[in-house]
């Protein structure tokens, strides 16, 4: 394997495109941690590979586990501009890629008519289908940008299967084809993150083009570290206890398990209340911060506080 690297000068075929931004997964992890995002080894490795192989990353997982935050933090780390495409049902080419500015084009034509034939049709056509009349939308903007950007395509599972196809050209070739203008290729290759809440199966074509990262709930140690780094004024003992309670809650069969962001909310609540330890009563009083269904709250207090509730 290492011999392969020695034999071939450019084993990935990508060296001419862009120098890698990170030298190792550990460096990625450290850089993310410096920006208060605690990545486990697999997250760091995937971000590192995304940069080395120049491939988009598809992030899936339950809500509130830091999918969007990962994209934002990587942008911060690289000092790159974050371009965000928030997907929703019914999004189309004109909202995601580009649109011709019809109104301005109409005005241009009407203005041309008043000048009485100073310009023939061909010139006019060339004129109204030019950059001036093009409204760039996030995908095109990311491609055309000259400064480094991170493209975040949020909640990609909300778009229809047909619309997904729009993304494919951007994701695999980093280019956009506009019939009137030709193909626009990226001047610098953006790092792309797609997030999905897994409300539907994404197409094979999309998945194939991406690296896949599943962000689940963190284990106790990592969750404690996250609480410590994100919540000012929390003691180590309290953070440990918070992480343990949340772990126990996630093992119950709840309608909606507490997410990392809810854990943080809870930690802030406890800090504001001035708690240094968590007793039965504290849990009972503040459980509604963690759980959002009454049936879950009942179940959790019965399970965790058992005989007393």
């Amino acid at each position, binding site marked *: 394997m290492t011999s392969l690297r020695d034999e071939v000068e450019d084993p990935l075929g990508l060296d001419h495109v862009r120098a890698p931004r990170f030298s190792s997964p550990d460096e990625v992890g450290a850089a993310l941690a410096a920006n208060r995002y605690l990545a486990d080894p697999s997250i760091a490795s995937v971000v590192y*590979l995304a940069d080395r192989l120049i491939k988009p990353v598809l992030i899936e997982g339950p809500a509130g586990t830091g999918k969007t935050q990962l994209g934002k933090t990587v942008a911060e780390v690289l000092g790159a501009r974050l371009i965000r495409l928030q997907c929703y049902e019914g999004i189309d080419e004109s909202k995601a890629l580009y649109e011709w500015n019809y109104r301005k084009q109409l005005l241009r034509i009407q203005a041309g008519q008043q000048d009485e034939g100073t310009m023939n049709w061909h010139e006019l056509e060339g004129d109204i289908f030019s950059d001036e009349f093009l409204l760039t939308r996030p995908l095109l903007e990311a491609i055309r940008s000259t400064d480094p950007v991170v493209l975040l395509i949020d909640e990609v599972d909300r778009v229809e299967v047909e619309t997904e196809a729009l993304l494919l050209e951007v994701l695999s070739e980093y280019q956009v084809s506009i019939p009137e203008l030709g193909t626009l290729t990226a001047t610098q290759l953006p790092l792309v993150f797609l997030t999905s809440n897994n409300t539907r199966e994404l197409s094979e074509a999309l998945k194939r083009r991406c690296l896949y990262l599943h962000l689940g709930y963190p284990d106790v140690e990592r969750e404690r570290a996250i609480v410590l780094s994100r919540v000012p004024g929390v003691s180590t003992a309290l953070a440990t206890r918070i992480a343990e309670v949340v772990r126990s809650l996630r093992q119950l069969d709840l309608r909606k398990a507490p997410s990392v962001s809810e854990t943080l909310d809870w930690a802030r609540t406890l800090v504001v209340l001035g708690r240094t330890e968590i*007793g039965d009563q504290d849990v009972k009083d503040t459980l509604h911060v963690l759980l959002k269904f009454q049936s879950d709250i009942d179940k959790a207090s019965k399970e965790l506080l058992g005989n007393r509730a």
Partner: protein
Amino acid sequence: MLDLLGSFVGELRDAGIPVSTTEHLDAARALVAIDLMERSVMKAALSTTLVKDETHFAAFDLAFEIFFASVSAQAAANQLDEPEHEAGEPSSQRGAEGQGKGGGGGASGEVSAEELAAMLFRALREGDAGMLAEGARLAVSRFAGIEPGRPVGGTYYLYRTLRNLDLDALRALLQSAAAGEGAMKGSLAERLALDDASGRIDQLRRAIEDEIRRRLVEDRGASALARSVRRPLPEDLDVMHATRDELTALHRALVPLSRKLAMRLARKRRRGHRGSLDLRRTVRQSMSTGGVPINPVFKPPRPAKPEIFVIADVSGSVASFARFTLLLVHAISAQFRKVRSFVFVDALDEATRFFEGTADPADAVARINTEADVVWIDGHSDYGRALTQFHERYANDVTRRTSILLLGDARNNYHASQAWVLDDLRRRARAVYWLNPEPQSYWNSGDSIVAAYAPHCDAVVECRTLRQLEKFVGTLA
């Protein structure tokens, strides 16, 4: 390395994970880009390029452990084993009793059971991974009694090791240690200590599994072992013959599945047919383009939703299948105008009331099992009687908008079939479907009388796995 990757990809494909050629290439390129000495990075690189579905991770993990275990095990063993091997081998008299050869781990007779338990306790308490692995190694050498060359998956060795370790005592010990440490008292603290201890015990169990697997790989080679431990993906599990763990996995898979299905059906309905042109909005829209109607606007379509009647056999043999189907249908009940469910063994009872007023269909299904009045004489399925009862009580509720789903294996215990009921129902209803959880080759064997009912159904569908079930329910709405 590339050969190894190739056979690894082959194994993933055999396990049911679709890996395309592009993804294989990506994995190879990813391996070039990383430091192969770091196992966790390598695992992340392979999983991110090859596996694109959360439910496939379990199969991937297993295959990865098998194919790439030897690398790290040897590296670790080289460091740990050498001194001990030399010190242990000559002096071990008891170790030679049949274990010395088979275990392959070396100094097996050295540690007494008590010392081993104490060591594992310390390793778990302090979260020391190295010591834990070493403890697992000793435990397996001592208790598993691995016989070289036997084509087994290792479950039996795991069972033997765990039985000898007395995990419950270890768990209790860990729990009391954790409880003694914290200053807090109360039921919350107790519960946390218990969960903590269980988590650590799971770590131990995993360490032992790893160790057994490692030895089996050394013994028989990766591909052979992978073949014998391969398990189907959750969506391909046979519902009727699932073990308890598999049922839990199925249960977990069912929730996202029904959510996806509901989403897809809702979309299909909204986009299925375009409604008529909405003139008012089209004209308003054209204002901004100088009166030229560039974007015509259509009215949203409002197609009728079907009604579903589920008639399920809940006798022992097919109970888990009925449970899953009821859960799935009720989970997406918003996609239907009405869902009514009926359950029977040798008497029929309407179960719709259990689903009303509860947010969680799982609760309702649990209540059906205990409260529904489905047994008449002996608790053996009687399809004929159940169908007649349905016809007597509910036939008039069946309309042209109703689809009837019958769930069961049609094993009628040699009672009368009463197939005329189905014939009559079919005339009243939009459609009658029969979902059979048995493989098609078993139909009409023994007391199965699918053939008697089949002519009166619009379709008889084999429904052994979640994937088949999802596909069928998707066509309903």
